[in-house]
């Protein structure tokens, strides 16, 4: 299990080798690609071994007992007395029973989390601190942050799918980036990203996660701006970083507040302690550090999550981030990095459960984002942007899952989404790669009927299409349906709220099916339009300058095997991944819900205990059937509009002008931020500079006054003896005139006492 500590460092090694030496030593593309892939593969192998070992470790009776003891100790420390776990009564036999009785829902909340923590060194010591919030306010603790990795069920799952998906995306990138002048830089950045991502999920405390959190932000910045000569890429990169910083601002404050309540940032300690804290009130009253400490912390964490996972209001960076190379979009902006927010919320699930107000915010923001992004997706013509909005929308679903208390469903959707969305992005990469002579055409307007030329891409993307639309039995069906079902039966909010969330989610699912099918239709079906593209026009410009129009006998081509193999593998997983988490409501327990049982120990069930499932719930089947029919109907509609009657969408857009504009211009939110908010801020900055000028002028005024004063006195210094004598005589006269009268008075009116000489400053001080 100690291998887990090595997992992040293989990609770091790859980053160093490719980043520093590849160019100097003149590595070929194959060598660079092989190094990068090998490092990720090594991480995957280590992860797999570590997780396998952990699965045994977690059910070991002594480990369970020790974890329980530790948790009880921590909780006792927090509430002062009372709850202490009696280790004596829990005999070994009893513990073994627990271990044997796994995979039974009844026991699932008996199995406690047994994080396996590897501490490498003390990273940030900071001296003593005082707790200022929560039940322990006034006590002191030590600011000490360790460089430590934590393997538990959640991080184990994450490192497995992250390294797995990343390996295939790296492989794909070897083909996609072929011929790029700074091939080594690309793979160095990708490996840097992997290092940071693995730090993010493996970090044993908030701050280690934050290292990865900001680190993936950096990698994302570097990779979005990878095409150095594209000015819009540079702008998008900066936008992504700064917007993420807004979220990180919240996360930093959340960490400070966590310190102020618990005196530590270690997940294991914080989550154990938070379990004995009472649930906070629901409503606006909880929005203060005094009445709702946990609520505020949870909301601040969610601000960070919303930045990283592109939720309202911080989502606009993600579509812009598509300026980066397509493998980057697949890896960072679809499969892994953007799901970090969901990871963090799931990681903090005991905390969120005690803050129902925050849960409602998470759910509402999630569903709103899902809906808004889906509606924007309908009118996008850039294939990657459409996919980006789809990602934003799916992330919204994940947050709905977390918000209604179904953290496992949220995480499960992360996993299935990683497969099918990575596959879709790589598929779009394959289309972009082979769809035009320049290999950079992303406008679906210039695609059409590619199924004839790219059969593998087409077939695998169809699998993912069914997955994302939620067609049984593809992966997306199980995860999305579980989220919707859990939203309907949420124990946290009232039934009406659950129903509203469900209805919105159901509606959005249909919109998703529509725009995704539209994307597929525009690309793979219909009339061939690729010869109308700008590559074939005279005098078009690319990054490298002027090009002659491409020859008209161009045909789109299928990508090489290094690119299609990842498509196939991920496509297969887009089909089968769902079976890992089939809801037991659907099967009546006939088929275990592996994901659920695996993640159960890290999910807190003390507030909302789960009811064991004993029989098939036919209502669930009804709901599932309804969503499948709904999705199929919307897919059919899209096929009808874009393949059978391709002239209709144009007319529809004319008829529904306001709606179309709203969607096409992205609900005006991008414009509001980029034009009004940033514009006003720039004016404000200029104003601040003006204030600075005023301040400086005040300082200079003193200098000027001195100089002006000197002008007067300078004129007096004429150097003429007569003048000096005159002034002297004048002075003598004034002195005499001034002094004369008091002198006269003192001499001739002695009744008035002479003024006392002032006492010396030294003596006066002592007298005080």
């Amino acid at each position, binding site marked *: 299990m100690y291998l887990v500590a090595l997992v992040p460092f293989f990609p770091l090694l790859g980053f160093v080798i490719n980043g520093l030496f590849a160019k100097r030593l003149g590595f070929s593309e194959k060598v660079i690609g092989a190094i990068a892939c090998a490092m990720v593969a090594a991480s995957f192998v280590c992860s797999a071994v570590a997780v396998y070992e952990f699965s045994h470790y977690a059910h070991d009776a002594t480990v369970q007992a020790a974890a329980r003891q530790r948790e009880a100790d921590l909780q006792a420390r927090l509430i002062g007395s009372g709850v202490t776990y009696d280790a004596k009564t829990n005999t070994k036999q009893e513990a073994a029973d627990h271990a044997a009785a796994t995979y039974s829902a009844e026991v699932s909340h008996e199995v406690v989390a047994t994080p396996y923590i590897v501490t490498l060194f003390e990273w940030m010591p900071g001296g003593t601190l005082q707790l200022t919030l929560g039940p322990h306010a006034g006590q002191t603790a030590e600011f000490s942050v360790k460089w430590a990795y934590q393997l538990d069920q959640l991080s184990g799952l994450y490192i497995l799918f992250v390294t797995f998906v990343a390996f295939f995306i790296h492989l794909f990138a070897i083909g996609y980036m072929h011929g790029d002048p700074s091939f080594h830089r690309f793979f160095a950045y990708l490996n840097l990203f992997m290092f940071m991502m693995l730090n993010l999920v493996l970090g044993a405390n908030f701050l280690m996660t934050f290292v990865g959190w900001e680190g993936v932000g950096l990698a994302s*910045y570097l990779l979005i701006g990878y095409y150095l000569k594209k000015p819009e890429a540079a702008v998008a990169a900066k936008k992504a970083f700064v917007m993420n*910083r807004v979220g990180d601002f919240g996360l930093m404050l959340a960490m400070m507040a966590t310190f102020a309540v618990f005196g530590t940032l270690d997940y294991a300690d914080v989550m154990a302690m938070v379990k004995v804290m009472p649930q906070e009130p629901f409503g606006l009253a909880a929005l203060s550090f005094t009445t709702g400490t946990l609520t505020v912390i949870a909301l601040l964490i969610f601000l960070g999550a919303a930045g990283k996972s592109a939720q309202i209001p911080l989502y606009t960076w993600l579509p812009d981030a598509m300026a980066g190379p397509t493998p980057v979009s697949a890896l960072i902006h679809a499969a892994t990095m953007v799901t970090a927010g969901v990871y963090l919320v799931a990681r903090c699930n005991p905390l969120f459960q005690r803050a129902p107000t925050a849960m409602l915010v998470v759910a509402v923001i999630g569903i709103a984002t899902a809906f808004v992004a889906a509606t924007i997706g309908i009118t996008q013509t850039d294939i990657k942007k459409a996919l980006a909005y789809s990602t934003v929308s799916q992330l919204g679903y994940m947050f709905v899952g977390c918000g209604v208390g179904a953290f496992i469903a949220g995480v499960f959707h992360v996993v299935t989404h990683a497969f099918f969305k990575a596959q879709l992005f790589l598929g779009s990469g394959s289309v972009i790669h082979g769809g035009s002579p320049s290999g950079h055409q992303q406008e679906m307007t210039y695609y059409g009927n590619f199924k004839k030329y790219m059969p593998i891409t087409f077939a695998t993307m169809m699998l993912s299409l069914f997955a994302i639309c939620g067609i049984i039995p593809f992966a997306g069906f199980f995860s999305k349906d579980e989220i919707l079902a859990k939203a309907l039966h949420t124990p946290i909010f009232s039934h009406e709220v659950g129903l509203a969330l469900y209805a919105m989610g159901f509606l959005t699912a249909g919109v998703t099916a529509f725009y995704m099918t539209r994307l597929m239709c525009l690309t793979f079906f219909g009339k061939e339009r690729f010869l109308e593209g700008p590559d074939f026009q005279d005098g078009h410009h690319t990054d490298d300058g002027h090009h002659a129009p491409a020859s008209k006998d161009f045909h789109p081509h299928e990508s090489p095997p290094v690119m299609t193999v990842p498509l196939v593998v991920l496509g297969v997983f887009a089909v089968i991944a769902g079976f890992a988490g089939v809801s037991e409501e659907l099967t009546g327990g006939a088929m275990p819900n592996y994901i659920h049982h695996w993640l159960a120990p890290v999910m807190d069930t003390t507030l909302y205990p789960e009811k064991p499932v004993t029989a098939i719930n036919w209502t669930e089947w009804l709901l599932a059937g309804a969503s499948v029919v709904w999705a199929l109907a919307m897919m059919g509609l899209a096929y009808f509009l874009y393949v059978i009657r391709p002239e209709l969408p144009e007319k529809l857009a004319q008829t529904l002008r306001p709606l179309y504009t709203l969607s096409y211009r992205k609900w005006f939110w991008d414009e509001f931020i980029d034009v009004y908010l940033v514009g006003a801020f720039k004016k404000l900055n200029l104003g601040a500079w003006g204030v600075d000028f005023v301040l400086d002028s005040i300082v200079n005024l003193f200098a000027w006054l001195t100089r002006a004063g000197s002008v007067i006195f300078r004129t007096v210094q004429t150097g003429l003896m007569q003048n000096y004598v005159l002034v002297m005589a004048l002075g003598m006269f004034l002195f005499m005139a001034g002094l004369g009268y008091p002198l006269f008075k003192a001499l001739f009116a002695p009744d008035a006492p002479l003024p006392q000489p002032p006492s010396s400053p030294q003596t006066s001080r002592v007298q005080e």
Partner: protein
Amino acid sequence: MMLSNVFFAAEPAQLFFGPIGLLSLVTWLPLVGGLIVLLFDKRRADLIKQFATVWMTVCFLVSLPLVVLWNYDVRGLQFMETADWIPAIGAKYQLGVDGLALTLVMLTTFLGPIVALCSWNYIEKRQKEYYALLLIMQSFMIGVFAAVDLFLFYVFFEVMLVPMYLLIGIWGGERRLYSAIKFFVYTLVGSLLMLVAVFKFYFTAAETVAKYPTEVKAAVEVIVGNNAPMRGLVLEGVELARRAGVAYAARAGGGSDDDAAPLGTFNIYALQAIGSARDAQGRALIPLSLQVWLFAGFALALAIKVPMVPFHTWLPDAHVEAPTAGSAILAGILLKIGTYGFVRFNFPMFPDASMHPTVASVMATLAIVGIVYGSMVALAQKDMKKTIAYSSVAHMGTTMLSLFAFNPNGINGAALQMLSHGVTSAALFILIGILYERRHTRLIADFGGVVNTMPAFSAMFMIATLASVGLPLLNGFVGEFIGLRGVFEANIVWAFWGTTGIILGAAYMLWLYERVFLGAVKNPKNADLPDLSAREWAYLTPLVAAMILFGVYPKPLVTFLNATTEVVVRQMRPNYFGSTTKAGEEQAAVSPATSDTAARD
């Protein structure tokens, strides 16, 4: 107080070469080098450059034993030296470093060879005088941090202005005279007020200790802990002050005028003990109203140095006009003297005034204004150097805000920020200097797409940029987070505003980077810029290495700093580390800035 009896005796590190201690050597060696440079033939510029650089490197190597020999078990000063200097007023030549001063001395010696090496091409006239001044300046800066005597400190503090004035005034840009004079006069005005405060406190201290000798001795124990030689040093100072105070009293009472009586002490730690001593009721010995005036006298001089808004306007001019090395030294070291002064003088000497709610909120508000406003002005700049100059205003605002949290996290964080800003901003100025040497312009609009022609340089600039915006694993983040966490403990609203700096910082730095480095090359003059030369690699590598090293492993720095910080916090808030929770402390923890003072009043 409570800890005075638990320490066993431990000897602080020291190293003497005959009568000269290691710290004196570190302090004066650069000056000797400067004098040697003056003997050189001015036509042999290459030789002068090489000599100055080598000498700076030697000075750095000589300062390394300070760290190597450091005794981690001892609190307070090490490498102490003492000699009589001006007996008439009781000023002594006393040197010594504690954890905070040591790290700042090391920062100074570390930057020395770098600023010498980066001037090789930039300085084209009067090389001899330039390098001589650079070396002399180095001595004075080290002296500021190494001085244990307030008068000695003040002398270094003032005399340091002269070489800096000349560096800006002779080798600066177009408006060099204006900037140099502004810098000089502005700083001087502040420090003259400080001198008044110094003397007022000097007399007050003597009177106080004469009245309350036992309380002051208890306060000395808090400072010195187990450090026996330092105890001797400080007690000697206290005794001098006490005798002086008794003499004043006698004189005031009409007794014999004893001319032989000493006039008091300038020993910083003796003065700290007197300022931080409390009577049995926990009240400070010096009345609050007087403390506030003294605080103001010191604070104005230091606030100008930091610089805090609204006393910052000398900084952009001085930074922009100064030669690269001058900017690097200004941003890297000179600004730190301001914050160092707050920790060394204002906090321990006038604790009640510092922690007075009004004073603390005024200072914190100015710091926050510095963060937000400095960042916003940085965003509006057209000149690269000015952007970095205003970013210094913002960063030093964060540092000041962290200091005024008055808790270990805040002060540790502030000290870490001082060090990291010292490295990062110096690096940024040096990097801009490299660009200026090639293009002779610093206007952002003249650049664009530099990454295409100078990839290695751009990578270096990227790392420095990221360190400046506080990316974890680079040095900027550590101090920022620890410091702001301390601020959160003191006041959540301050922490909120302080943390906005991370957004604004990212905005102006990355926007600068985007406009200068990214995109296609538009200006043909940028099309064939040569990338880094071997010499440039040589001085950028240590800077970048330091950024990464202390971002990944800041523990050694914190170990040094925390020793000082704990003492300062103990002096200001004697109950902070108390493990027992009293009933009243729960509120105390919510707003420490107000409560501790309130409890004492």
